[in-house]
């Protein structure tokens, strides 16, 4: 690629400091085609900042220049494009040697985005613009949508992207602590002391949370000392497992947490859970508050402490809390000039930190706000701010003082990181006194600790972590011997006086551009206008204005939005609330969700033999079955040849996927009699019976063959897809009936073939010497036990395909030997395997239905011409009562056979409609060309007046062509049923 060489010499890098960076390892990378350098441990954004590249992206709607805001991934300002990865958070993503980073959402170049002029027409794009502008005339949206879609959106997908290897793993802990700040670390250490197995999770690369960048004392050394002491305790404790760079991205029922680390998603189950997830700093809302150079106080602290980067040269601080003063000290210590502090309150609360700052001679403007920020001449950075005295809530004096600066530090307050807690059922409310959101109504086995629980001083935060750990462990100790209980600590003293939240840091400006939600370029007026357009509920405000719908999901805008909506609608902030937080907390990759995709596959023991014979395999549920044998371009010829061979010689089909259920015990016949529609009490031993199953609604749901091998033993087959349901339904019924019977699903224990055709007996008797196969000794629908090819076997004389046929069931692991024995024995007779497709044609010719294909969710036995399979002489079977009622009401439709005599007509397909007088009156369920009859045959549901043989029906076939067909009696083939009785 073409690159512009530039020095970009990390001239903003401080001489020392930077917890995360390794200054011995320089990394080279590119941003917007320019060469940059950073250090190992840098994020993309910190490395850019180190070289003075503050402009990172262009905003979504107005293409305004945007830069670092939170340094914590809580805003869309830092979204950048990697070659195969759009919408990457530059402030969270580690810098990698050779990385090729680009900006997003601009035309031309990031520095001179042609789209920036859209801002000039911003006045014509009010909230709800799309809804209003393109609603009329009809068709307008269709015309505009492609243009708007091209303009909208952020990153670009790499269409040559190759998916990586992702997986999942389950983990179990006594206690999971989310967030490794001072509260979380204290909790983990205490719980481990009490014997609990603890997982401590944090999304950052190091332990410590705010201790790794906060200043908690005037000298600025206590935080680091405390952090190191705690880390030493954690590392020394074998009960604590630490996962860093690991994001807990949601909360699901019963403490089930998806924790994403690297290419793996851990599915973690916690007996107890402590959310020490901290809080999110919020911005002040004033004119041009989105200029690069305007940052959260915590972003400035992070840049200095974590990355050793100087965030600016001359700073102004706007603050309503102590943190503004602490960061001001940080800046002074880093050599940054602090020109002024705009103190929103009447005066700061005196503390060591405030006194230290005052002693350094920084001007403090009490009761002052930043009314507006001014951009540099190239519009790409902050050049100064206008301070004005506050004269009321959100109101400033008519004039103020302008101060040059390239950095504005905003310290006006926080919201608890409520997202995970609310997903767990926690409820957010608002305390007007402290101007803080608070969390309540936590589910059992979940606690919150630290600033998310409204604690601010380090002592209170750690005390809260300690207390929550003791409560969790004391509960665990009741059921877990390895955990000990200790005396419960007293409740913490109220820390709310230390609230860092200023109640109203929102200052409307006649020219607007006071951004509430940076992601979506939403200003105060947009939120207010949404309520005026009638969308007063916070959920409606969100959907109408898109506020909180951007990539940061309201993390930096929720508080200001709630306050503005509350005021505009005359409600309290607590009544207004926030929108529902749903998982995931942060964007996650589809790869993490997919993991290893387990799509179960089932193979019969003859699978290799099908492959050897050139089968085209098809999937039926999880099963692999041979569709037909031969090449795909010869498909129809292969199927027809297989059909011919069964009709004229002998064929072999693998029917192992058929379900098999064994019912044994004194009540075996009674159970069969209740589950299936036919009578089974008097079924002779050694005989098979057709078994039709209906559900309680009288609908046909499965069928099979019931074989009685013993007075107390029935072996009943079920459809491939239905057997698991049939088995479970039998168990459920017998859980209620309490019959003395055992029910076993033996589907996988047996494999089976059907050897069918006029020469089937001839072949079979070569490999089966202990069963008399003659028609007299072993008639149609007889069952026998014996050996085939040396393998113990159950033989059933069936007629599914309409020829002399034997189903041979043998133990699964002997299937291949059985197959080989039969193929070898049948060489002389021309035995050939046949597949599922040929079997479908054969059974259709014979008029046999397939449950689920020729039946639907309404099919009664009567409708599918199975009335003969329903006993009227027994006191009960499942579905009996409804079938009786339906039969008394009269039948509405019938499944009939039809033939198409016009060989040039397009062959009707399943679900094609039968049309009569322009009305749909029926549909096709099966239709195939019959090689035996030489024309298409099929089955269809028709109205009763068309059910008589000889009726003419009209089918709307492929391409809308009407095809005439004639209803005929079933079966199409061998109506006297002589073939299968041979």
């Amino acid at each position: 690629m073409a690159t512009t060489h530039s020095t970009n010499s990390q001239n903003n890098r401080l001489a020392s400091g930077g917890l995360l960076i390794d200054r011995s390892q320089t990394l080279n990378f590119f941003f917007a085609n320019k060469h940059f350098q950073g250090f190992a441990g840098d994020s993309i954004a910190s490395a850019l900042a180190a070289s003075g590249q503050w402009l990172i992206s262009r905003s979504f709607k107005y293409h305004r220049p945007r830069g670092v805001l939170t340094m914590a991934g809580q805003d869309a300002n830092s979204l950048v494009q990697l070659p195969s990865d759009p919408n990457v958070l530059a402030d969270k993503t580690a810098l990698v040697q050779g990385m090729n980073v680009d900006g997003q959402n601009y035309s031309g170049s990031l520095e001179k985005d042609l789209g920036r002029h859209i801002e000039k027409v911003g006045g014509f794009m009010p909230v709800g613009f799309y809804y209003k502008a393109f609603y009329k005339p009809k068709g307008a949206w269709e015309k505009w949508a492609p243009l708007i879609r091209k303009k909208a959106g952020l990153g670009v997908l790499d269409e040559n992207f190759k998916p990586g290897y992702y997986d999942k793993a389950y983990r179990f802990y006594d206690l999971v602590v989310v967030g490794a700040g001072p509260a979380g670390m204290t909790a983990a250490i205490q719980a481990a002391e009490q014997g609990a197995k603890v997982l401590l999770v944090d999304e950052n690369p190091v332990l410590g949370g705010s201790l790794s960048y906060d200043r908690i004392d005037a000298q600025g050394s206590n935080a680091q000392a405390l952090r190191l002491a705690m880390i030493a305790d954690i590392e020394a404790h074998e009960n604590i497992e630490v996962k860093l760079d690991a994001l807990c991205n949601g909360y699901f029922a019963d403490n089930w947490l998806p924790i994403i680390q690297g290419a793996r998603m851990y599915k973690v189950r916690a007996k107890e859970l402590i959310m020490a997830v901290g809080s999110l700093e919020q911005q002040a809302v004033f004119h041009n508050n989105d200029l690069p150079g305007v940052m959260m106080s915590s972003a400035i602290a992070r840049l200095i402490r974590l990355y050793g980067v100087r965030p600016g040269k001359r700073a102004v601080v706007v603050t309503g809390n102590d943190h503004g003063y602490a960061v001001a000290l940080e800046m002074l210590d880093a050599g940054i000039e602090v020109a002024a502090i705009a103190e929103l309150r009447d005066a700061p609360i005196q503390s060591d930190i405030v006194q230290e700052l005052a002693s350094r001679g920084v001007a403090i403007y009490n009761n002052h706000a930043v009314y507006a920020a001014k951009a540099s001449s190239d519009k790409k950075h902050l050049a100064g701010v206008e301070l004005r005295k506050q004269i009321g809530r959100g109101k400033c004096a008519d004039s103020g003082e302008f101060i040059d600066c390239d950095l504005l530090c905003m310290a006006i307050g926080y919201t608890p990181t409520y997202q995970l807690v609310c997903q767990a059922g926690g409820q957010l409310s608002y305390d007007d006194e402290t101007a803080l959101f608070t969390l309540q109504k936590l589910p059992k086995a979940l606690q919150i600790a630290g600033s998310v629980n409204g604690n601010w001083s380090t002592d209170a935060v750690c005390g809260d972590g300690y207390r929550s750990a003791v409560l969790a462990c004391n509960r665990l100790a009741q059921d877990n011997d390895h955990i000990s209980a200790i005396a419960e600590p007293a409740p913490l003293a109220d820390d709310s006086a230390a609230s860092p939240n200023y109640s109203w840091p929102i200052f409307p400006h006649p020219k607007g551009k006071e951004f509430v939600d940076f992601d979506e370029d939403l200003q105060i007026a947009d939120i207010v206008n949404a309520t005026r357009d009638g969308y007063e509920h916070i959920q409606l405000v969100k959907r109408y204005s898109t506020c909180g719908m951007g990539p940061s999901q309201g993390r930096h805008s929720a508080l200001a939005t709630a306050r503005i909506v509350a005021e505009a609608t005359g409600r309290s902030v607590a009544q207004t609330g926030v929108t529902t937080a749903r998982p995931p907390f942060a964007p996650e990759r589809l790869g993490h969700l997919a993991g290893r995709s387990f799509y179960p596959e089932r193979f019969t023991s003859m699978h290799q033999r099908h492959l050897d014979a050139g089968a085209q395999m098809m999937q039926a549920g999880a099963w692999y079955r041979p569709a037909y044998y031969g090449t795909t371009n010869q498909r129809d010829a292969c199927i027809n040849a297989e059909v011919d061979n069964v009709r004229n010689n002998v064929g072999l089909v693998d029917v192992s996927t058929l379900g098999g259920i064994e019912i044994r015990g004194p009540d075996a016949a009674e159970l069969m009699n209740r589950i299936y529609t036919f009578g089974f009490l008097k079924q002779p031993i050694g005989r098979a019976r057709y078994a039709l199953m209906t559900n309680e609604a009288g609908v046909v749901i499965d069928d099979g063959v019931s074989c009685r091998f013993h007075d107390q033993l029935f072996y009943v087959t079920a459809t491939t897809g239905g057997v698991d349901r049939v088995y479970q339904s039998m168990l459920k019924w017998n859980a209620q009936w309490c019959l003395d019977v055992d029910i076993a699903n033996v589907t996988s224990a047996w494999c089976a073939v059907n050897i069918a055709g006029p020469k089937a007996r001839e072949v079979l008797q070569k490999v089966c010497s202990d069963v008399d196969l003659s028609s007299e000794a072993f008639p149609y629908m007889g069952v026998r036990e014996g050996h085939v090819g040396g393998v113990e076997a159950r033989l059933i004389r069936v007629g599914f395909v309409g020829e002399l046929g034997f189903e041979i069931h043998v133990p699964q692991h002997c299937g291949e030997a059985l197959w080989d024995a039969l193929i070898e024995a049948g060489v002389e007779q021309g035995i050939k395997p046949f597949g599922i497709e040929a079997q479908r044609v054969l059974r259709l010719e014979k008029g046999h239905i397939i449950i689920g294909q020729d039946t639907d969710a309404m099919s009664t036995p009567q409708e599918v011409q199975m009335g003969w399979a329903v006993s009227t002489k027994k006191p009960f079977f499942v579905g009996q009562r409804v079938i009786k009622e339906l039969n008394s009401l009269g039948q509405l439709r019938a499944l009939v056979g039809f033939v198409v005599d016009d060989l040039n007509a397009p062959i009707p397909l399943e679900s094609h409609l039968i049309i009569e007088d322009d009305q749909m009156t029926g549909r096709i369920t099966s239709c195939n060309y019959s090689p035996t009859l030489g024309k298409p045959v099929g089955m269809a549901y028709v109205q009763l007046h068309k059910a008589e043989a000889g009726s003419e029906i009209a089918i709307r076939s492929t391409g809308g062509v009407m095809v005439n067909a004639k209803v005929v009696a079933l079966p199409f083939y061998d109506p006297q049923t002589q073939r299968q009785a041979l």
Partner: protein
Amino acid sequence: MSEFVNTTPQSSLRRSMLCRVQETLGAQFAEHQGAIVVRHFNSQLDEERAQLKSLAIIDLSTLPRSGFKGREAPQWLTDKGVNIPETPNQAVKQDDGSIVARLSMQEHLILSDLAISASLPAKLEQSWSMQSDVACYSLPRNDSHAWLYLTGSEVRAMLSKVCGIDLRDNEFANLSIAQTSIARINGILIRDDLVINGSDESSSAIPAFHLLCDSSSVAFVWESMCDAMNEFDGKPVGFAALLNEQ
């Protein structure tokens, strides 16, 4: 220790449904007490023994097993001198090395000892008859399920990728049973730690689990296990190394 006689899977009517994939992995098949097993994948026995200790998968599908279920099954088994567990989802190792796993109040699974010298599954099957009036019914466990054995220090970490059960040492004691979903296939997991006899007459147990799954799904399960084992350099191992440890 019994003799192995090299042969091919096709020499028997009973074949493991994994024999094709095992062939492609270089398996040497052998007959062992009437069962065709993979003798080894790697002819260096020491390497296969070391593999057992780190992470290995062994196919025991051709070894005998049986099952007995029914209202009177516990009594019938007890009458036959079988030591059955008191509660469901527990297994008991018999003196002869066979394992009796109680899957519910009424259902028991009997696994052969590895040397196939005790033949408990077959003996019980032979003494059972449909003709008797006892409410105890034989189950075709030789064929309904495939039988895999997973061994090694990394076996729990590996299984945690395919199975959502807490298998940690203190939560899932030796001879515990979990009937659950493994790689989305229903299976029976039985912890049976492998005791390794050291050269100095000391012995140590390494974690190991029997996995019984639907026999038609075993190729899929094998593939899923091998995928999950890759990260830990887990490999299939032959029967000879396992028997050598007994």
